[in-house]
């Protein structure tokens, strides 16, 4: 059999291959030759064959049949064999293969070899790919070598020990004695690897950390070494661009960081040396900056004095102005870490950071964006927002979603005026509309309802935006919702903030119908626009047109649209008398913490006579009210029903949260033109498809009760049961006043336990006349599906003789018939 070809020869041959197929053919041929050579147990050429195999492996071809051969090479007595064998083991074997355990014995022998280079090979292999079992078996040998005086072996043993500790943390203790005088070495290699070993031990075990701090007095030793490095003259062996052993310096600084963290004494001991390094290090080359960077990280992490911290931030500020991108990048990263703790210091560099938004590099842009959002506050919001919006316009798509969310958050926190806020939102929607997150739509709608005086302006701007572009769904959804709600303002040209536009009802309906038919609209958007059209039936006069549209979609293929259309049709036909009530203006929605999924809610403005399927998109804005629930200690609280109009309820609800603990809430409404009790209302919540008048017969014989009687204010409850749904109790409160002065601004609020649901209708008035001359009545509807004992907490607020009065009470004396 001819001698196998040499490695270089093979490489040369393979490189002449012009196609992948040709290369594969050559490789296969050679592999076959190698395989037969292995079968012949040829010692002479094994080394060469394995080397070739390793080359082919690097090209991507399978080489597992060479694994055992590597082991044979390792066991050989020739150094060349061992070298290739160990290399092959590191490349082809790993702890997943059982074969690797066969190495253990060889490595053990080689660790004790008479030649340090062989020992070195063994240490290297063990330190790179030793499995836990191997580490357990050989830890003793490594520990022995850690104590040798041979620095060549000592440094390798230290790193090998690091690997052992990573694999088998329990063995850490074993290496402790050997670390005693590691730092008294002169050899930099040993010093460096020792610092790495000590770092690993301190990071892994708090006990070790304390031990090294207190008993070994590591900090002074490290400070001394670092000082020598800085102060000593030129050392050619370790010099890098005029700095003495930067690798060691950086490692020492990192260990100092760990030792100084949360420890005053250690931090104090290293203050001086840190200041020295920070001020004396040459910054013209990357090496110097690498050391400064590590120093800054250390200063920020330990308990350094404020002067030092300011020094550190200033270094970062200088980094930001550096031409080198890499330096700017690390500066931004570090500033991001410190912006929370040293906010003011970082603020000083705000303009530089904002400039980095224009950088070409993606990583730098991202960092700058995150940092910019962290720096926004009430003072700089206008300027910052201008920059950030400009950034939003021009940035890559991958940033747009995050940037848009960031802008919304910042605007919400620091908006200087409502108009500015709405303008900002409009800007985001029109420029990055398709990247805006899904939950922004309900959030924005809620925000818009809250800015009552801006409704006309908002709807006008949204309408104009729709005329330009209907492709961005979040914008379209918010716009259709607003047009549905405030279309009357739009047509009547009431805008104060800017020049009102002349729009006719037909034009508005054209736009909304356009959304329905457009290919760009998603099903959700279509739902929004159909509902908006329907709402306009009470705000516009062209009802017939709306009726036509609605009836057309009654046969739409989209089930969602079809259902809505059918129900709206029903509204026109059978329930026309309810239409105005159902479609009236939405109340202001309470803004609370960010919402999770909430239960279905029924509000006065938007009830449907059918089941809940299409509630999600309409009820989403309403669900904001349910966000109160999230604040109530995370209990599973029932939905909140609000019937309120603007102004009062917002604050009232907030106070209730504080006072009424885990009960579900109902806001107290101000007097409103909502329908009074006697108009029949659709059934409560998920209550079947029919809608029958509720108040047929008052359930005979439930006695009234006095719920509250104090300070001349008496509140009586009378009961009725609704016929179709026996779970619903209807309570009418009668508030009367026996004192000689009127009680004005009277607000009644109630809360029930979580298994109940409560709806409060509008009171008859908000003045309880003196001396029983009249009373206020208000209807409460309580759903009690679990037929539990009814109890209620009520809160009363009123003004009496000019002074505000407030009281809380529990009502527990409900007659059993009222809830059974």
């Amino acid at each position, binding site marked *: 059999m001819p001698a196998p070809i040499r490695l270089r020869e093979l490489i040369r041959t393979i*490189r002449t291959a012009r196609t992948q197929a040709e290369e594969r053919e050559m490789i296969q041929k050679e592999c076959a030759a190698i395989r037969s050579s292995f079968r012949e147990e040829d010692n002479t050429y094994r080394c060469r064959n394995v*080397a070739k195999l390793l080359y082919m492996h690097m090209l991507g071809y399978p080489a597992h049949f060479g694994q055992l051969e590597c082991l044979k090479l390792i066991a050989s007595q020739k150094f060349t064999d061992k*070298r290739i064998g160990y290399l092959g083991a590191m490349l082809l074997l790993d702890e997943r293969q059982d074969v690797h355990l066969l190495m253990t014995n060889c490595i053990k022998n080689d660790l004790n070899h008479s030649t340090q280079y062989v020992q070195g090979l063994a240490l290297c292999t063990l330190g790179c790919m030793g499995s836990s079992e191997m580490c357990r078996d050989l830890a003793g040998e490594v520990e022995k070598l850690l104590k040798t005086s041979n620095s060549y072996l000592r440094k390798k043993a230290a790193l090998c020990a690091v690997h052992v500790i990573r694999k088998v943390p329990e063995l850490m203790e074993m290496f402790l004695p050997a670390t005693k005088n590691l730092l008294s070495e002169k050899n930099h290699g040993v010093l460096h690897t020792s610092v790495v070993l000590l770092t690993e031990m301190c990071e892994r075990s708090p006990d070790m950390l304390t031990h090294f701090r207190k008993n070994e007095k590591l900090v002074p030793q490290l400070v001394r070494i670092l000082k020598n490095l800085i102060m000593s003259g030129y050392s050619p062996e370790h010099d890098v661009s005029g700095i003495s052993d930067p690798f060691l310096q950086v490692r020492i600084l990192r260990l100092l960081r760990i030792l100084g963290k949360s420890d005053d004494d250690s931090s104090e001991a290293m203050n001086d040396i840190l200041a020295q390094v920070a001020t004396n290090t040459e910054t013209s080359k990357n090496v110097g*900056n690498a050391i400064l960077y590590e120093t800054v990280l250390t200063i920020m992490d330990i308990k350094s004095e404020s002067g030092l911290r300011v020094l550190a931030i200033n270094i970062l500020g200088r980094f930001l102005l550096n031409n080198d991108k890499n330096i700017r990048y690390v500066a931004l990263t570090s500033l991001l870490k410190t912006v929370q703790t040293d906010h003011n210091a970082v603020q000083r560099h705000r303009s530089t950071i904002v400039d980095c938004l224009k950088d070409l*590099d993606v990583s730098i842009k991202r960092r700058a964006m995150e940092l910019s959002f962290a720096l926004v506050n009430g003072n700089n919001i206008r300027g910052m927002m201008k920059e950030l919006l400009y950034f939003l316009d021009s940035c890559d798509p991958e940033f747009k979603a995050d940037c848009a969310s960031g802008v919304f958050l910042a605007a919400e926190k620091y908006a200087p005026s409502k108009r500015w806020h709405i303008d900002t939102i409009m800007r985001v929607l029109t420029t990055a509309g398709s990247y805006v997150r899904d939950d922004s739509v309900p959030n924005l709608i809620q925000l818009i309802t809250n800015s009552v005086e801006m409704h006309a302006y908002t709807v006008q701007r949204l309408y104009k935006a729709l005329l330009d572009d209907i492709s961005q769904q979040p914008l379209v959804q918010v716009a259709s919702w607003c047009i549905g709600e405030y279309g009357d303002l739009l047509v009547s040209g009431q805008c104060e903030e800017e020049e009102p536009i002349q729009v006719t009802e037909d034009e508005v309906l054209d736009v909304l119908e356009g959304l329905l038919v457009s290919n760009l609209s998603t099903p959700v958007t279509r739902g929004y626009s159909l509902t908006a059209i329907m709402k306009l039936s009470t705000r516009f006069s062209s009802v017939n047109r709306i009726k036509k549209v609605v009836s057309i979609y009654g046969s739409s293929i989209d089930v969602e649209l079809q259902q809505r259309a059918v129900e709206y049709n029903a509204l026109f036909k059978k329930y026309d008398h309810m239409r105005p009530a159902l479609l009236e203006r939405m109340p202001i929605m309470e803004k609370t913490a960010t919402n999770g999924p909430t239960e279905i809610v029924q509000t006065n403005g938007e009830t449907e006579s059918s089941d809940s399927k299409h509630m999600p998109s309409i009820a989403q804005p309403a669900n904001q009210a349910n966000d109160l629930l999230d604040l109530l200690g995370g209990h599973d609280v029932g939905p909140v029903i609000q019937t309120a109009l603007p102004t009062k309820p917002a604050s009232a609800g907030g106070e209730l949260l504080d006072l009424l603990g885990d009960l579900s809430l109902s806001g107290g409404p101000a007097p409103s033109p909502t329908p009074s009790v006697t108009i029949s209302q659709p059934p409560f919540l998920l209550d079947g498809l029919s809608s029958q008048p509720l108040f047929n017969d008052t359930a005979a014989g439930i006695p009234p009760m006095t719920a509250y009687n104090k300070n001349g204010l008496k509140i009586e409850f009378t009961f009725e049961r609704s016929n179709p749904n026996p779970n619903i109790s209807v309570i009418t409160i009668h508030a009367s006043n026996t004192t000689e002065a009127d009680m004005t601004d009277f607000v009644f609020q109630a809360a029930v336990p979580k298994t109940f649901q409560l709806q409060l209708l509008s009171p008859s008035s908000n003045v309880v006349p003196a001396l029983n001359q009249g009373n206020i009545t208000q209807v409460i509807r309580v759903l009690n599906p679990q037929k539990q004992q009814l109890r209620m907490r009520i809160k009363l607020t009123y003004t009496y003789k000019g002074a505000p009065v407030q009281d809380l009470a529990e009502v527990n004396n409900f007659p059993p018939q009222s809830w059974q």
Partner: protein
Amino acid sequence: MRFMLLFSRQGKLRLQKWYVPLSDPQKKKISREVIQMVLARKPKMCSFLEWRDLKIVYKRYASLYFCCAVEDQENELITLEIIHRYVELLDKYFGSVCELDIIFNFEKAYYILDEFILGGEAQETSKKIVLKAIEQADMLQEVGPIYFMKAFSARWAI
């Protein structure tokens, strides 16, 4: 350091050193991903990339990319210095190193790397000492069976 890759501008791998245990298919997948990412970078961009939970530090020397994946707490700037030191070692050893040297002598490139870095950390910060060790080891290859080496080590021990 978790791993180091050397690859050409066409994406051909010239050296791969892994300091974490991974299966071959995993290594292939990771290499492909990282190589793609780095090759997509424009010349003016900074040398650092975020990838998964690691930081990729890379630098191009002539036709070869040197790429290291380090953990989050590592100092990226010093990693650049480590890469540079390795290139200097190769340069000193091969005499004005070029990609072909590394292709045809890949095993030597590994030996040099293993003499500079162990388990992902630098073991020796002196260029001179690393090169001396390689030189000695190379000479051992020339000599015959190992029982001659005792005399050798006695004379050349560092």
